[in-house]
């Protein structure tokens, strides 16, 4: 049913630390691996070894450069997957009921056997979290590894999304963001976690922790400044000699 629940018992989601992410793309690979081998249609690739490879991914890592007015440019790695929004526009637009938000934990899922592949949910998502699989013709999205987090056959430490489990930097956290006492909620409160594109009115569950302020270098390194106004010695002579040639000097 594509009517959104009034509220959900829990709000399971991710907290992504932009200060810690090193941009290694390990989460991208583990996500692709787990979700190709497990729940739903595999994440296909088109001509993976050809000249123009492409494929379906539920998690992609962008890199951005922020240029402060005073100071050096900063590089920020930015993993992006479904934010499991409370006001998920992708759910209400679905004509078949394939797209839904679970009342018990707030996870947004696609029932692939009901999906007609019209693509409207992907259009409605401002974050680009949904991708239509070119081989299967159905919409794919992050399931928050629903087949891991409730999976009693896995050791307890593995019952979290594959991306969180694999992150070598500890930049990804998983938990209940509806519970103010949970570790993830406290992390968000402590670090001033933010919503992406709040003006789109989607109320995302996933939060991003902004990069901490960087150390500032007080002055530009000396090595970059000229050490002498007038050149002396052999190089000085060479400089003046070359200036005297036709076309030299300025």
């Amino acid at each position, binding site marked *: 049913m594509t009517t959104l629940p009034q509220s959900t018992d829990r709000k399971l989601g991710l907290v992504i630390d932009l200060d810690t992410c090193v941009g290694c793309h390990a989460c991208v690979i583990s996500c692709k691996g787990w979700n190709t081998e497990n729940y739903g249609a595999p994440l296909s690739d088109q001509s993976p070894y050809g000249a123009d490879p492409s494929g379906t991914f539920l998690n992609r890592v962008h890199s951005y450069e922020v240029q402060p007015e005073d100071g050096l440019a900063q590089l920020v790695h930015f993993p992006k997957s479904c934010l499991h929004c409370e006001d998920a526009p992708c759910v209400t637009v679905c004509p078949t009921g394939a797209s839904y938000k679970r009342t018990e934990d707030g996870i947004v899922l696609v029932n692939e056997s009901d999906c*007609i592949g019209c693509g409207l949910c992907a259009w409605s998502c401002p974050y680009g979290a949904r991708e239509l699989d070119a081989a299967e013709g159905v919409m794919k999205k992050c399931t928050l590894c629903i087949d891991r987090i409730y999976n009693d056959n896995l050791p307890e430490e593995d019952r979290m999304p594959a991306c969180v489990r694999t992150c070598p930097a500890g930049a990804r956290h998983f938990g209940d963001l509806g519970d103010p006492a949970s570790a993830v909620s406290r992390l968000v409160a402590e670090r001033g976690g933010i919503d992406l594109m709040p003006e789109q009115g989607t109320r995302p569950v996933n939060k991003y922790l902004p990069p901490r302020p960087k150390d500032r270098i007080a002055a530009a390194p000396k090595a970059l400044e000229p050490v002498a106004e007038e050149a002396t010695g052999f190089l000085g002579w060479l400089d003046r000699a070359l200036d005297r040639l036709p076309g030299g000097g300025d």
Partner: protein
Amino acid sequence: MHPARSVILFTTLSGLGFGLLIWLGLGLPTVTGWSAFAFFSVAYLLAGGGLIASTFHLGRPERGLKAFTQWRTSWLSREAWCSAATLLVMALYGAGLVFLEARWALLGWIGAALSLLTVFTTSMIYTQLRSVPRWHMALTPALFLSLALAGGALLAGQVGYAMPLLLLAGAIQIAHWLRGDGALARSGSTMNSATGLTGGPVRAFEPPHTGPNYLLHEMVHVVGRKHATRLRAIALVMMVLVPAGCLALPFSHSIAALAVLSHLLGILASRWLFFAEAEHVVGLYYGKR
């Protein structure tokens, strides 16, 4: 947005087809027998052909009937209901005109209202998307409805109505372009809001993959904006000015055909721009806005 041929054809043809059904339902013109058969055939070929074209962009068209289930929240589902209801009601009404030479006026009015509603639901599929600011405004349904009414009047030979409606549609089209040009800026979505990064301008340093992907292909279409101004002029001339000029001339079948053909080509150009110029905010993540 990617200007997919199937969706451009669908919105153009079905808009005209349902537009013609509005006028036929109102009894303008009141036709019976073979001439009713001809008018209804044109309307059903356009409306039905458009609907069939729309299924070509589905990944799983064989499950299409499931699209009737979510009318409570989904404009696409509502459109499925409205178009099916319209085609059923108007088939009954048309059968009366063609075979019994009887005009069941009430049925015609219901059919006309349903036709108008179908065009409205089509427009709302686009208007509802906040992620595409150029579409997310009241001018979008106004544009679709005025074009359907004007095109329908043109096909129905209602010269008196067609002229002012064409000019109205042209004015709404111009307003849609002008308001649309500033829509992304007014939406407040920027690379800073998309990434939540503050402290300076944000530049996309490295995309997630070296290759293209579904998002880029579907929603970050950047071709064609180069010729946007020229295409707008072409669309406006063919969609409004040529047909309006033809209507001002004394009636002849060849001039009427020219007016309809020009109007159709003009709408195709306008609809192509409607998609090609629409900026989806996901493009911000790729530094393409």
